[in-house]
């Protein structure tokens, strides 16, 4: 039977078992909305801004491991979605984003609400398509899901002109697909596994540095097994948190610009580094010329272009993280050998010495609410079981440092692009994926205002999200840099004319709680956890000039940390 393009689109979503489409209607996608209206399998979540649609789909994808789906109209709908697409791209999150387009006969004439969506999104997608003929639509949708979810995942945009959604074609949706120009699974070369095992066994001062690839490839179990087998210390990037349990003794904290003293010094002094699904980002390496000066580096990554891009590595294991971790485990077990126990004990002694510096210490007797205390308490009250999304800034770093993630996919943040405004819409996607779990959005008074309109969406769908607003009255991270590097000239980092967040939340139909004293923090959080019929906005008035420590200044080496 022939279907319209709009119907083909909806059928394709069903075949892909899509639960939710996050979107916003407009002229170019009206046929599609009509087709969505006539069915009940795919639920459309109506956001208040297209940026939020992409972040919500992104949060859904990060938490569930399934691709997030977005539907926006042409022109401004597409451009509003770009920030979210770029956010997903930087963190390798699988999204399929459908943008409406003006009818094919109007493409190129500056028609109403026409933008070159394929052109605008090209640098921030894994791939994109313009569907010019309805006969190509089903196959293109299949390709979009396939490309987005395989290999190194990423966002894929499908631009569909309005007439294509009205025209009819036979619906033929392939079960599987292969593309001659795309092979997501690089043939695994096992010949280097033995070399890697040699390095690991000879190590005297080893480190495991694991990133978002562990989460994306669901390789936490393998990482845990390998780490325990070896007895090595393990550190996570911002994107890797939750891969290895944070409360386990082998975990020495996050590394990088705001990483722990022990993790960064461990990196700086190690002799063998096993990098797992991490990409040697500049926020991790600091000055690359000073990075891990004495280490031999073994790098596992699914993306060949990540290998030796920023830092030259000695052994490259190109392929899925889980596959190579299993191979390493197998290789190690076969050898019946262990790394030198004396050297390892010596190394742990050194690491524990660094650890005893207690680099995350803060003033626990302060009259003011310390943001770190809020997050510690949040961790305690939720028993580490919450899904935590965050925005970007100091609060993000504190959340990463103080909430101990023991499970993967619980920590949801924009690491690569650092997108303020991500946290709240992302929390919507997470809560939809896990309706019965606690979802907390840790944010600041700056970031939250970038997508605050989503409180309305949250009301509409009854999502009991807990917003933890660490309100320091400043764009705190900007202020911190200005304090350290611009002699306290606080240019534009003070947030003037803030709304009354409690009233604001209430006007959207949510609960609002103002917290001004440290001894109110715990009770307020407890109270918030009890409210489950709407969202709760906790407005914590925190110490305005608290800083995130440790800090590696831009251009510094990993051993050049500013400590509290």
């Amino acid at each position: 039977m022939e279907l319209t393009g709009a119907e083909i689109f909806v059928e394709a979503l069903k075949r892909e078992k899509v639960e939710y489409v996050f979107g916003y209607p407009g002229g170019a996608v009206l046929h599609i909305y009509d087709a969505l209206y006539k069915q009940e399998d795919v639920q459309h979540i109506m956001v208040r801004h297209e940026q939020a649609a992409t972040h919500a789909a992104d949060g859904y994808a990060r938490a569930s491991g399934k691709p997030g789906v977005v539907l926006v109209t042409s022109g401004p709908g597409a451009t509003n979605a770009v920030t979210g697409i770029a956010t997903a791209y930087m963190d390798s999150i699988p999204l399929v984003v459908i943008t409406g387009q003006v009818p094919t006969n109007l493409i190129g004439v500056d028609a109403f609400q026409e933008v070159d969506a394929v052109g605008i999104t090209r640098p921030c997608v894994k791939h994109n398509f313009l569907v010019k003929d309805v006969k190509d639509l089903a196959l293109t949708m299949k390709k979009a899901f396939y490309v987005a979810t395989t290999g190194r995942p990423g966002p894929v945009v499908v631009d569909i002109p309005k007439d294509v959604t009205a025209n009819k074609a036979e619906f033929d949706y392939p079960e599987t697909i292969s593309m001659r120009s795309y092979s997501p699974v690089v043939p695994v070369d096992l010949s280097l596994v033995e070399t890697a095992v040699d390095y690991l066994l000879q190590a005297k001062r080893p480190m495991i540095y694991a990133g978002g690839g562990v989460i994306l490839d669901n390789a936490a179990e393998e990482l845990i097994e390998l780490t325990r087998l070896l007895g090595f210390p393990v550190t996570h990037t911002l994107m890797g948190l939750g891969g290895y349990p944070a409360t386990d003794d082998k975990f020495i904290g996050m590394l990088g610009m705001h990483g722990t003293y022990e993790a960064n010094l461990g990196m700086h002094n190690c002799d063998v580094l096993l990098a797992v699904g991490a990409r040697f980002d500049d926020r991790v390496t600091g000055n690359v010329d000073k990075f891990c000066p004495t280490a031999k580096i073994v790098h596992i990554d699914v993306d060949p272009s990540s290998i030796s891009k920023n830092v030259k590595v000695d052994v490259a294991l190109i392929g899925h993280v889980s596959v190579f971790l299993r191979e390493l485990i197998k290789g190690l077990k076969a050898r019946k050998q262990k790394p030198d126990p004396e050297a390892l004990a010596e190394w742990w002694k050194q690491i524990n010495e660094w650890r005893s510096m207690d680099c995350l210490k803060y003033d626990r007797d302060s009259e003011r609410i310390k943001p770190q205390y809020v997050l510690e308490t949040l961790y305690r009250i939720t028993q580490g079981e919450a899904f935590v999304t965050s925005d970007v800034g100091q609060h993000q770093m504190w959340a990463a440092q103080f909430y101990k993630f023991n499970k993967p996919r619980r920590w949801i943040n924009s690491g690569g692009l650092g997108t303020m405004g991500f946290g709240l819409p992302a929390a919507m996607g997470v809560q939809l994926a896990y309706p019965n779990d606690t979802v907390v959005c840790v944010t600041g008074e700056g970031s939250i205002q970038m997508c605050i309109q989503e409180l309305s969406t949250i009301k509409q769908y009854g999502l009991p999200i807990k917003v933890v607003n660490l309100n320091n009255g400043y764009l705190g991270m900007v202020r911190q840099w200005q304090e350290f590097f611009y002699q306290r000239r606080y240019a534009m980092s003070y947030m003037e004319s803030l709304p009354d967040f409690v009233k604001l939340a209430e006007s959207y139909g949510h609960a609002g709680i103002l917290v001004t004293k440290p001894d109110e923090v715990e009770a307020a959080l407890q109270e918030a956890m009890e409210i489950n019929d709407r969202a709760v906005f906790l407005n914590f008035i925190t110490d305005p000039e608290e800083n995130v420590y440790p800090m590696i200044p831009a251009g510094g080496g990993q051993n050049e940390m500013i400590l509290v």
Partner: protein
Amino acid sequence: MRHIISILLENESGALSRVAGLFSARGYNIESLAVAPTDDPSLSRMTIVTSGTEEIIEQIVKQLNKLIDVVKLADMTEGAHIERELMLIKLRAEAEQREEIKRLVDIFRGRVVDVTTETYTVELTGDSDKLDAFINAIGKMQIIEVVRSGSIGIARNGNSLVL
């Protein structure tokens, strides 16, 4: 170092801009770029002449391979290969200069393909160095217009860049 990278590309709209966009976004050099369909109309062959350190060339190759529209590629410079570029060049050629110019064209194995009372238009093929050498030999004063196709390349021996 200068590298000649040959790419088999899906012959689809937008494929060219993906490659060009990659080079500009990541700050890689393009000295020249030539592209046309192959005997298989679904495939284009693109030749990019670029330069950079070994690390940069490695990244260029990897990043190109990552593009979904890139089916296959090879760095011609890694092995024996033939490089050719076509140039059409219009020269001032008045009566007394004609003999001299003609001789130079012959030395370079070019051909005069169009003649007016004041000009010669010359067709010349060869590697880029040869075309440069001709331009130098003829001298700036003589040149009215230069069109170069950008280099294309093909591997010698049995190495072929095909599906």
